[in-house]
């Protein structure tokens, strides 16, 4: 059976066409991925009997224009707002500015870092002999050329003040994440040998033996790529590191084919979609909007419980490495954290806990939360400077 051909597009008046393009524009503003082909099909729908009632037209448009669950959920509101003038259109735009000015955004944190403003960071901050260290470690940021990477490598992120050096460190963090991906995949591809015979290639190779397949080429199940799931602590105590870690995570997401990112403080936010934005600054803006209220306290246990309950089944498979970037200062109960860590451990291949405090002199993981979590962690490593981030790569490559 074929549908009645629709070729009455000319019957539609210019006014209606304009209205439709307006609707498509407002959808695009709201983050819908709608192309020309869709607009054309929508025009066809307007000529079909479906358009006789607004209700059936709505469900037809919904099927056509939506591409994902988030679109699906906001479509009704957008449709009503546009076609019947109900509701407020502007309230749904994704690229707006934060309404709560009192909340810190990631961008503000990034800027603040350059000029060293210790605001909320004070709650659990302890910096032994910071003043002396600072003079010694201070990045000679003015030095030019290739050496800048070297000097920056060993400097603790919290000692970076010079905006230029900060920018450079961010860039390096992102580049580091990029290079990790390349090496990891190359290794993966060379490892294809296994039980099944690859006949196509066997025949190809038999040519040199006069057509007798002597050399057998085999193929096996393809290795699953390592998937990285990053849980980034964005609480007040991590203030000094949040900005640069965010860049690092952005780099990872941009380059690992399979990666997911979550941000947590007192609650957990899934930020992969925001960070999939290519441009780092825009990605951070979007993430900042999603993660209102960063820079406050931490409830790692609760955030992990949330993760296990709602996201783990979807984002974790057998070749997943969960990377937690946190200092382990938790205002929740340590027991709850231990339970959730145990649950997480059962699901994934490895848990890597990166703690920037390890880089501090004389640091012992004595905080209650950290103590509770440690037995379930496969790798407990420092992450206070670029060198320590780079040191991760060989570990991940072996997984």
């Amino acid at each position, binding site marked *: 059976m074929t549908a009645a051909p629709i070729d009455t597009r000319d019957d539609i008046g210019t006014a209606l066409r304009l209205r439709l393009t307006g609707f498509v524009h407002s959808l695009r503003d709201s983050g819908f991925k709608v192309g020309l082909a869709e607009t054309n099909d929508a025009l066809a729908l307007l000529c079909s009997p479906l358009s006789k009632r607004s209700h059936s037209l709505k469900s037809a448009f919904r099927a056509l224009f939506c591409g*994902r669950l988030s679109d*699906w959920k906001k479509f009704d509101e957008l449709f009503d707002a546009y076609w019947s003038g109900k509701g407020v259109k502007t309230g749904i735009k994704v690229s707006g500015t934060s309404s709560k000015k009192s909340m810190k955004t990631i961008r503000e944190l990034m800027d603040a870092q350059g000029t060293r403003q210790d605001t909320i960071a004070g709650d659990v901050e302890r910096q032994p002999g910071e003043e002396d260290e600072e003079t010694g470690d201070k990045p000679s940021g003015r030095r030019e050329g290739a050496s800048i990477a070297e000097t920056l490598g060993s400097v603790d992120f919290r000692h970076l003040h010079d905006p230029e050096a900060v920018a450079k460190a961010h860039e390096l963090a992102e580049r580091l994440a990029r290079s990790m991906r390349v090496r990891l995949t190359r290794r993966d591809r060379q490892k294809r040998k296994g039980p099944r015979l690859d006949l196509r290639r066997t025949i190809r190779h038999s040519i040199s033996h006069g057509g007798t397949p002597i050399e057998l080429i085999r193929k096996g199940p393809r290795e699953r790529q390592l998937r990285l799931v990053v849980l980034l602590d964005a609480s007040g105590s991590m203030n000094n590191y949040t900005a640069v870690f965010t860049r690092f995570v952005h780099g990872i997401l941009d380059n690992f084919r*399979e990666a997911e990112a979550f941000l947590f403080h007192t609650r957990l936010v899934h930020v992969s979609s925001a960070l999939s934005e290519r441009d780092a600054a825009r990605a951070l803006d979007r993430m900042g909007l999603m993660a209102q209220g960063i820079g406050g306290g931490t409830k790692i246990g609760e955030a992990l419980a949330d993760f296990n309950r709602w996201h783990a089944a979807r984002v974790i498979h057998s070749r997943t490495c969960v990377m937690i970037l946190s200092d382990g200062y938790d205002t929740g109960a340590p027991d709850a954290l231990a339970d959730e860590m145990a649950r997480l451990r059962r699901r994934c291949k490895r848990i890597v806990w990166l703690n920037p405090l390890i880089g501090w002199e004389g640091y012992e993981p004595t905080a209650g939360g950290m103590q509770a979590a440690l037995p379930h962690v496969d790798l407990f490593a420092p992450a206070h400077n670029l060198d320590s981030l780079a040191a991760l790569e060989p570990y991940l490559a072996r997984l």
Partner: protein
Amino acid sequence: MSKTKEQLAKALVETGYVADEGLATALLLTEMLNRPLLLEGEAGVGKTEVAKALAKLEGADLIRLQCYEGLDRSDAIYEWNYQRQLLAIKAREGSDDDAETVEEAVFSEKYLLERPLLAAIRQITPPVLLIDEVDRADEEFEAFLLEILSDYQVSIPELGTVEATSIPRVILTSNGTRELSDALRRRCLYHYVDYPSADREARILLSRVPGLDTALALQIAELMGKLRKEDLTKVPGVAETIDWAAALVGLGAKNLPESRELVYDTLVCVLKTREDQARVTQEVTDRLLGKVA
């Protein structure tokens, strides 16, 4: 012949699938616009059933491609029958055929193995093509799929391009284990299949479980709705409800609140992990039953 969506929904019910209004519209559009339909939703809400019901309704063949990690061209589109080709070459070794003739013979239709996607576009009557759990396949595969779904043709280097003899109705399902590419999403119509409302679930039960009376079906459906709101590791789907209803009917339950023990004992049909079974105790069951009564 063109249908309205009410007719379509009614015809679907006759095949045993109770569709909501949005889904009926979406199915109507797949035909009108010749676009594939992407169904997303939790496991067990009946996404695959949509394709089966549609095939039954149209009297068309259902061609199913189950996706998995590592699925590639040779498993999904076509493959040469290498063993036969090798044999054919060996058999001709003594004869006077020149290389070109042999090559032509060996790379002919006879030695081509059709896989689901190629098979689907070469049917004379348009089949329903179900690409199940497309999120499990790799991104590369998504790219092939895009090519086939937009042009309905397959190019085989040795044979040339195979054009579709008929355009299949394509239904893709996804559980959301991986984010699908925007390109694929844009190509497809989209419908999110949610857990059915109590009313619709009861209608599904009535059409699927013989010997079930309406009052009991409604009770079961309501109880399932409540159960899904509990904090469960694995939320039971519609298939589980159907199993459970069949079990209850088989064991002779007439009214749920009156057969508490039976309800509790048969929850094994619905709760599929140890944690969930531990969580839904007799007390919880009683509380849920209390709400239903």
